[in-house]
């Protein structure tokens, strides 16, 4: 009971975080929640949408609200891996190589328009995202904790994009799209303060320690056997569909793990100490869509169909 009470207090805290996020990203409570859940699940977030709908603002709002250090890397077609990870430079005065840390040495890395960079640079992120460490000149450097990558990408139909390989897509725990705001929200955007100013003036509601605590808490959310059954049923359904040619690939076991981790974080945000099928359903689309078809636009309907087809109990 005691732990449950504590958890409940934390929920209030999480709600404060969400409330502040919602002041920046108006009218998208579900998406902000998913973004926070991805962070609390210890994963990385991919935001796929048109330019100008608030992808960058979301990332910056997360960083500002959670009190995390953040860096931004604008991915371009001529970006080199070293531009992201860092480089050893020979210091003439000291007669030695000195590490010049790249923007990746931070808590929250905003990789803007990740699919504009060539694959080589994209994969420079791989090691960092998977193992929270980078190797520069054969030397391993551990990254800060928490380490969280928010990558944004433009829809694949646009010009000058290098589609992310499946292996890299799989490393993003979930992929969300923000979409155009509805009219009320848009009105308040148009009339209200500039988001940039708001972000500058906003104070943090939580700290890195809070985030680490929440991440630990989320891992402890109880997952009952029926939930595991349901997860496996969903995974099996995607593989069946892939075998029939309905989608590019079935979900990997890592995707299953991501699904469960996201569900736990989602349940925690909802203030529960157990995962419900509802949690799985809430996060399934965003976890599965980009893995199933490589893009949200094609993956989302497939994921929804699978949700309808696979019945819980």
């Amino acid at each position, binding site marked *: 009971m005691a732990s449950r009470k504590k958890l409940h207090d934390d929920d209030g805290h999480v709600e404060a975080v969400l409330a502040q996020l919602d002041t920046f990203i108006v009218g998208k409570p579900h998406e902000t929640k998913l973004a926070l859940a991805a962070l609390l699940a210890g994963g990385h977030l991919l935001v796929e949408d048109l330019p100008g709908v608030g992808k960058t603002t979301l990332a910056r709002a997360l960083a500002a609200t959670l009190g995390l250090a953040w860096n931004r890397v604008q991915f371009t077609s001529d970006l080199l891996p070293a531009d992201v990870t860092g480089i050893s430079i020979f210091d003439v005065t000291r007669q030695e190589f000195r590490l010049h840390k790249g923007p990746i040495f931070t808590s929250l890395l905003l990789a803007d328009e990740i699919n504009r960079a060539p694959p080589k640079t994209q994969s420079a992120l791989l090691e960092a995202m998977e193992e929270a460490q980078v190797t520069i000149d054969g030397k391993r450097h551990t990254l800060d904790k928490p380490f969280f990558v928010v990558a944004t990408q433009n829809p694949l139909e646009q010009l000058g994009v290098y589609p992310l390989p499946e292996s890299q897509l799989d490393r993003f725990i979930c992929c969300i799209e923000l979409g155009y705001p509805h009219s009320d929200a848009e009105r308040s955007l148009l009339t209200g303060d500039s988001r940039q100013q708001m972000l500058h003036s906003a104070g943090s509601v939580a700290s890195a320690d809070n985030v680490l605590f929440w991440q630990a808490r989320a891992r402890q959310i109880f997952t009952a*056997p029926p939930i595991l059954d349901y997860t496996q049923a969903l995974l099996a359904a995607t593989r069946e569909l892939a075998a029939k040619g309905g989608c590019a690939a079935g979900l990997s076991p890592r995707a299953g793990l991501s699904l469960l981790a996201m569900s736990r974080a989602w349940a925690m945000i909802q203030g529960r100490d157990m995962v419900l099928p509802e949690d799985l359903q809430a996060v399934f689309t965003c976890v599965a869509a980009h893995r199933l078809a490589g893009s949200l636009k094609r993956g989302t309907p497939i994921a929804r169909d699978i949700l309808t087809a696979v019945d819980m109990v």
Partner: protein
Amino acid sequence: MSENIDIVTIDLAEKEPSVLRKERLRRDTRRILGITVLLTQLPLMFHLPLWLSIPGMFLVLWKTVPTFDNGRTISPLYMTPLVIVAALGTLWHYGHFFSRDPCVTFLFLLTGFKFSESTRKYDGSLLIVLCAFLLLTQFFYWQSMLAAFFTLPALFFIGLSLFSLQRDTSTVNTRQMVHLTSKLFVQAMPIAVLLFLAIPRLSAPGWGDGSGKAVTGLSSRMSPGSVAELSKSNEVAFRVEFDSYTPLPPERYWRGPVLNGFDGFDWFIQPGITTNTFSTTSAATDASGQLINYTVTMEPTYNPWLLALDTPASMPTIQSADGSRKSIGRMDSQRQLTTADNLRRATRYQMSSRLTDRFRSDTPPGADSLFTGSTNSRTRALAMKMRSETDNDTVLANRILRWFNEENFYYTLNPPTLGAHSIDDFLFSSRSGFCEHYAGSFVFLLRAAGIPARVVTGYQGGEQNGDYMIVRQSDAHAWAEAYIEGQWQRFDPTAAVAPQRVEGGINAALGDERQSLLQKPLEWHWVKSAGLQWDSLNYAWQRMVIGFDDKSQDNLWKKIGLDSPSGWLIAVLLVLAACVWILIILLPTSLRDQTRVSPCEQQWHRLCKKFAANGCARQSGESATDYVERLSLRWPQHRRKLLRILACYHSGLFSRQGQQPQGHQDSTEEMKREISLIGKLS
């Protein structure tokens, strides 16, 4: 089943831990033991003297109810005198000590005392053994289905006490304990049935001695009012199955004790006559009347008489183990059937009778059949007057019957008390009476007129229930037989006064008076039909369970193809059967668990089904929350219940507590409750 329990108990007692604290009885175990003792004592209360049994139970009650129980035992200072008082009280009540009833009474009391001084686990084990034994003793007194029902709760609590004695930690809560005990009980049932069928039994149990037991039924003496007393009882006297023809109501005269003796007031069985036996070969001579074969199952009467329809034409026989028929009684010259022993158990015998109201008697009746004593002079004068009018005995008898019919006689169960000249009083002043009054005075009139006559008691009537007929104590009747022209002829003066008594049974004859005497609900149709159902159940119990003796067992062995197997073979077979049953229980558990839907899910499916039947089915992939939301939109009045069900469903299936049996069960229970609260949907 109690045999199994005994064995387990002994094991338990040997394995007592030596640590002192562990040896002590837990308080809740004490409570359960108390309830066990009370439940065991309860059925015996009806059979033992109340002034002894109530204090014996009171002590247990006092130590069981938490309000009075201070957790301490009664000191030996009080206990010793208490035991002495109990022993003396038993001795005083019965006058002796070493027979069944005083021993049971004393055991009953001692069990109660033992409980009130029990503190250790050892005491608990001992108590359980005592209870198991005490529980058996009630079958000395009655063996009906009700008795078996009475033992069930006590047996269950014996199991519970055993369980409670064994648990040392409080991890097992009471509900789990009850659940497990019931499960064990159900699993033990088939083995109990097997033991019942296979354990060799004694052909005649020696303990069924009902000495001093008052049973309602016919007696060897008939005084005015004795049959009327019987008529108020609804108890079953006997049941009959007819082979082919079922006699009509006016033909249903069940002949019982023949009362030839008269002492001026009472009619009684004359001792001497019963020694003369009557051979059935001469019965062949009375050829008139239809021959009827039937089977009678008599309740224990603790009297030697057997009942037979009308004029018995054969000896009562039972089918013995080897298929041959064995006579169980004899018939005397009055054609009265008796057995060698009193009927201590329900007895089933086959009979054949002739439907006739007269039978020839080779030996003419003696002077006893004419004895009237010196009382009742007015009656005697009346008989003389009638005698002088005719010489023909038959005419005279009919003349008397007509006289009963024409005069203002009244048929009632509550006749006024009669004086010393009872027959004079009855015939000339009170004129209201019951069958024994009519039969008695009719016989007296005949005798006074010089015609040998006697009173016959028995039953008249019977109620058809399915394939058999019930004859109750309320059908008790008395009529007369007169010796005219070398034949004993039946005359029923009651029929002359109240013909409907014979045609339609006693209820028809008494009309409204009956209703005030007997329980009124009996007149309601459904109570009556329920009563008949209950009776046929009892009858089946008697035939199948009580009547399952060595003979039926032999038949059973034959049916399986074993001709009277030896004890060893039976033992081996039993062990084998038990092993097979245990395998059946154990084997599929693992297989079953895979496909089994948890109780919580079952409840959820129940809910879904319920609403689906009302046009609101859960869609594929629709989450429980969404579904409940949809339902509460359509049925807002159930919103709160639905939300509670949802919460229980979630916690039962997905929460950490829900994975524990207890938590899961709690949720299931609450779901069940809430779902039933929803009731019918409109």
